[in-house]
């Protein structure tokens, strides 16, 4: 298999965990996986990207126009990284924005709607309602599993549901395995669309 998946969001949203879950699931299937992360300034509200490359590849970063799938945890970050998307690629995006930390001081005017509208206009796009995740499970921290679950529903990962459930058991802290599996299963049924 050859697949390139870009995960993007804001520091703290759980992009690195999502990247590890995917890597684990693909490796269980015997695939070669590599990834590159931006870490460091992520803690302090910066943009973060993980490039997950499955199959034979040389560059640690996905080339522009080659990503099969973009999993975007944040609307502006989805638009920011559209250059990576291949012509018939798919974007799965959470519609709840994270305003920049400086927004209250100097209003950037950033709103999610224009971003989501632009995405719908420019590419194949599935919108995940982050608010429903927060309402049902009490925290934005479960966004990553909601997005992965939604991706599983549309069968665009190249993974079976069981592969990801297995990965959750292996990677997520024991105390949170069950709730994470729940979020994933709900998302896979389409609960957050």
């Amino acid at each position, binding site marked *: 298999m050859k697949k390139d998946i870009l995960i993007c969001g804001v520091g703290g949203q759980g992009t690195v965990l999502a990247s590890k879950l995917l890597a*684990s699931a693909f490796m269980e299937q015997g695939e070669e*996986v*590599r990834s590159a992360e931006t870490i460091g*300034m992520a803690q302090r*509200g910066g943009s973060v990207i993980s490039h997950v490359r499955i199959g034979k590849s*040389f560059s640690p970063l996905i080339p522009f126009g080659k990503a099969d799938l973009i999993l975007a945890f944040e609307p502006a970050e989805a638009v920011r990284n559209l250059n990576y998307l291949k012509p018939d690629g798919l974007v799965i995006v959470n519609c709840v924005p994270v305003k920049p930390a400086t*927004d209250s001081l100097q209003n950037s005017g950033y709103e999610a709607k224009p971003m989501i509208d*632009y995405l719908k206009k420019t590419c194949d796009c599935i919108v995940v309602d982050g608010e429903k995740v927060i309402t049902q499970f009490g925290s934005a921290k479960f966004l990553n599993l909601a997005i992965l679950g939604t991706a599983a529903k549309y069968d665009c990962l190249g993974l079976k549901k069981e592969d990801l459930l297995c990965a959750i058991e292996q990677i997520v802290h024991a105390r949170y395995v069950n709730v994470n599996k729940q979020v994933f299963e709900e998302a896979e049924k389409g609960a957050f669309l």
Partner: protein
Amino acid sequence: MKEYVMGNSAIALGALAAGVKLVSGYPGTPSSEIIETVSKYPHDGVHLEWSVNEKAAIEVAASAAYSGARALVTMKQVGLNVASDPLMSLAYVGVSGGMVIVSADDPGPISSQTEQDTRRFAEFARIPVFDPATPQEAYEMIQDAFVCSETYHTPVLFRPTTRVCHAYASIDIKENWRVKEYEGFIKDSKKWVIFPRLSFINHAKIEKRNPEIGEAYSEYRFNTTEGAGTKAVFASGDSYCYAKEFLQDQKGVKLIRIATPYPFPERFVLDALEGVTDVICIEELSPYIEEKLLQLAGKYKLKIEIKGKLTGNCPASGENSTMIVSDILSQFLGLEKRKTTDYSDAPVLPVRPPVLCAGCPHRASFYAVKKAMKGQKSYFCGDIGCYTLGNAMPLDMCDTCLCMGAGITMAQGFHWVDEEGKTFAFVGDSTFFASGMTGVVNAVYNDADMVLCVLDNSTTAMTGHQPHPGTGRNMMGQFVDKVSIKKVLEGIGVKKILTVDPLKLSDAVAAVKECAEEKGVTAIIFKSPCIAVTKPERPLVIRETCIQCKTCIREIGCPGIILQDGKVTIDQTLCTGCGLCAQICPINAIGGETV
């Protein structure tokens, strides 16, 4: 055994597989995870330490290497500057056991002050350097580096870059490692004590040896030539990966990869250049390979056109990427430029500048100084760490920042040219130990006038919350006496030292005013733990009585205070309940939930 790990972990595991005895270093992005990895895997018999700074790290390791034991030292590239004094001399003295110094470069730069190139440093120090392109290579090459060090009795540099350090890959690792046996230190003052006469003799030996290393590594399995043609691409490090990604679909071009930049593998390169008329060099940070090729072309009178940074064909600064390299190579090969989708009609994207975390005590410390010194001419000399972010609006409390420990000494310089203004230096607890203490001695000895603000948050935060001498914990799992910053300052002779909780705003402001009124060197230790190493308090809320004056937002700009539907609100997922905003609100409209 297969492990999915980042490049830094691959380096650590490779060093363990090589039987390393001692691992030392100082935190620095992108190298910090190497030592953290060693601590997470079995490492019986290995001495592991975060040294107080990179100079100490090299020196501690050198003795191990003198004793025939293998030693690994880790740092980022600017840390190499701090380590350069011992390293330059060590190159002349040599080693017995293998000693490898990992200096992680940072193209961009993403989080460093310079785009300096460790390959150049290796040449300057006259020692070999290895340049891995992937985590798997890093695992194997670090072991080769130890062998090289022992074969040629020289310290060896190892320079990964961010995209190797922080890239994850599945690597095959050897299990059941143990410390390689070593014979111990054999006294021989003619060998181990540096004197000009010894340096004169050894310098000649080094200059004779280096071309021999270049010759030997012309056979090295990671110096490779792929493809064929009259056009050739030279690449090193992650640039090799970007080039290979593009060239996998091309024919009629050679891809030549240099894994041992110094000593330059001359014979390998000359062989690779057979039949080549046009060359382009794909590299980051400096045109090192390009210059070496120009030297070679001059020496052997080669008829080759060499392109790269110097000819303007490659960017002079900044990080490479698959796209930048594809565009360069398309042009070089006379191919059509890639078609790109035009996203220029996208809505304007928000900028996300890094800011201090919600609840960070540094915000309170800077605010206290700002408030206390309002209306007075002051200089605020910052330093390297999370607290460099004190420069962000609305605090704007950082006039200068140069390098580790510089704030303390720069504050003194400003005083000497402007005795009317009041100078402040801000330094973190880890930076204080690393390179701040001597600056304070300088201030007391030269009778300067300044207020030293030590921002003690009990950790080395920016690089990932590593422990340091003031935290009472070291990497051998030992709980040790904390080195007291206050006692150090007392010992140096600082006459007035106040310790204050920055989150108690009026106490903090009073402390600043008290010190600012004094002549000479005074110090305030702002003591409050980093939010990442302590449990948060309950988040605060904006009360109904809020008049939307936005003083809280304008004065401190905490990311926890947001505008929701136009109204000032506290983000309950970010607020740690530090209470700073509550102390700033003019009408007491911020407080706990139950009030």
